[in-house]
């Protein structure tokens, strides 16, 4: 059956808009496109941890560029999720130094506990997406998992892995980002 309501176009919160304005001022006026990556990061944080096509269109509109210019960037950089993710995205470093200190075993362990598969759908409870990434620049504290802006290091014992997962499970809201700190509703909207 044909839908009778038009799809809702995503909109940035007032706080995010202010942050985007601040960022755009960092570049020469005719070089607004420079703000592409920072604005994509804000968009991903605002809209549930991934950048849907309509979110990317919104970024294009804000920056005054063609949508294709956003798509070619969002598909090039690995930090932008192009499909829906769980509440927490666990980025497991799999590169040499982490592998030497047991990242393969850590990945298997996280798959077993969460029930999610690396690179696949979120866990059944919607809490965790597992993603293997290349070098997180924490080689001396391997193995390492990054969740949003936080690093969990030396995850080589059962206790450390469980402590990370229980911390994430108990997180009612994700931590507010600096531009949301005044307690705007978007700080919790994605959870």
């Amino acid at each position, binding site marked *: 059956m044909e839908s009778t309501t038009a799809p809702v176009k995503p909109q940035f919160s007032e706080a995010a808009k202010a942050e985007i304005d601040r960022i755009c001022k960092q570049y020469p006026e005719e070089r607004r496109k420079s703000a592409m990556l920072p604005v994509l990061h804000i968009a991903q944080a605002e809209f549930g941890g991934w950048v849907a096509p309509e979110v990317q269109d919104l970024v294009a509109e804000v920056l005054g560029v063609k949508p294709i210019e956003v798509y070619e*960037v969002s598909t090039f950089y690995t930090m932008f999720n192009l499909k829906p993710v769980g509440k927490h995205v666990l980025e497991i470093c799999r590169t040499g130094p982490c592998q*030497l200190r047991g990242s393969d075993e850590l990945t298997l362990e996280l798959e077993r506990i969460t029930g999610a598969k690396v690179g696949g759908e979120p866990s059944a409870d919607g809490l965790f997406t597992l993603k293997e990434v290349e070098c997180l620049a924490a*080689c001396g504290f391997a193995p390492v998992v990054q969740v949003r802006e936080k690093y969990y290091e030396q995850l080589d014992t059962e206790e450390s892995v469980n402590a990370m997962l229980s911390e994430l499970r108990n997180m009612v809201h994700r931590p507010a980002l600096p531009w949301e700190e005044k307690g705007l509703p978007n700080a919790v909207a994605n959870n």
Partner: protein
Amino acid sequence: MGRKLLTEHINVEGIDTFEVYRKHGGYRSVEKALKTMTPDEVVEEVKKSGLRGRGGAGFPTGMKWSFLAKPEGVPRYLVCNADESEPGTFKDRQLMSKLPHLLIEGMITSSYALGANTSYIYIRGELLYVLRILEKAIAEAYAAGFLGKNILGSGYDLDLYVHPGGGAYICGEETALLESLEGKRGNPRNKPPFPAVQGLYARPTVVNNVESIAAVPVIVNDGGDEYAKIGVGRSTGTKLISACGHLNKPGIYEIELGVPVEEFIYSDEYCGGIWKGRDLKAVVAGGSSVPILPKELILKTAAGEPRLMTYESLSDGGFVTGTMLGSGGFIAMDETTCIVRNTWNFSRFYHHESCGQCSPCREGTGWLEKILHRIEHGHGTERDIDVLASVAKQIEGNTICPLGEAAAWPVSAAIRHFRDEFEWHIRNPQEATRPGAVYPGKAVLV
């Protein structure tokens, strides 16, 4: 104990705040440079210091600065390369998160020397939390009058911004970084023109690593000649080494260039030896892109001299018996390490991170990964080792940027020094793919 020029105060409580950093002598170089020196005099001190690019290339920083084109009436830029993502290297992340003001001070003094009125720190996207630390510190520096208009009444203006990447190793290559900063895919540019002539927004631009810029305040405060007294030969000053892998004490160490490799690995002042009482098998001394060396060759040069932590000593013998200091990413591997598995892992990294712009790299890194995967998983054939070596050879020198070489060198070196281990994998697939399998032989020394 070696001198600590960058990290002396790294563990001081509150050193990430302007107030405490200032109390420990912070921002003196800005005062000295802006009040008593011309920009050219600052460049001259950096030249005298012999400082070499700490991001991996080792090119003299002062010389790089003197290449900057200075046409009248055209803005020029200083861009800090904080896109550290070479496997094994994690020094810049630590330096920036603990000593944000050191980098900011270096950015101000360096920007003054180069005549840049707008500067950027391009930080890898994964480090958003470090970006917040830097932005807070930058705001403090603005409030104290060290950034903005007419800094310290000198008539010099500077705006400093932090810009996050999006997760792409290639953006550590300076022209890819500039493309990325302009809001595009990180595809390296053809050179010439070099960034010193046409860089960011086609303006003259200098791109320097975090650690290089952090060394500038020390050089300006103490003088280039004093800095040059530390170290050995053309390897002057101190270097941050990120030590990881199978070491008792992995971490960041600031060393005076010239410390013997053996001392660095085994002494308690540094890495404290190999973990679990095991024997050392091999080392990748300068980040994953440099050639791997077996224990015997990393501890001593081909001539039997003790190998030192310097640009020259580590590269002694070229790529036959030597390697590179690179970015200082020091990865130690114990006797149980599977070299095939490790080489495959690095190849997977380079294949994943190739931007895809030139075919030898895009296709070549894929082939390297595919063949190594095959050998590691017990499906290798007798021809594979030669094919691997040949693919690596064909990537080298045929790409726009050095990512091609970075992918090829580890493979060529692994075959050069550990060919027997590859052959063992191919001839004994069942045994080699057993979980925890350890190659029973020894490395062949060229």
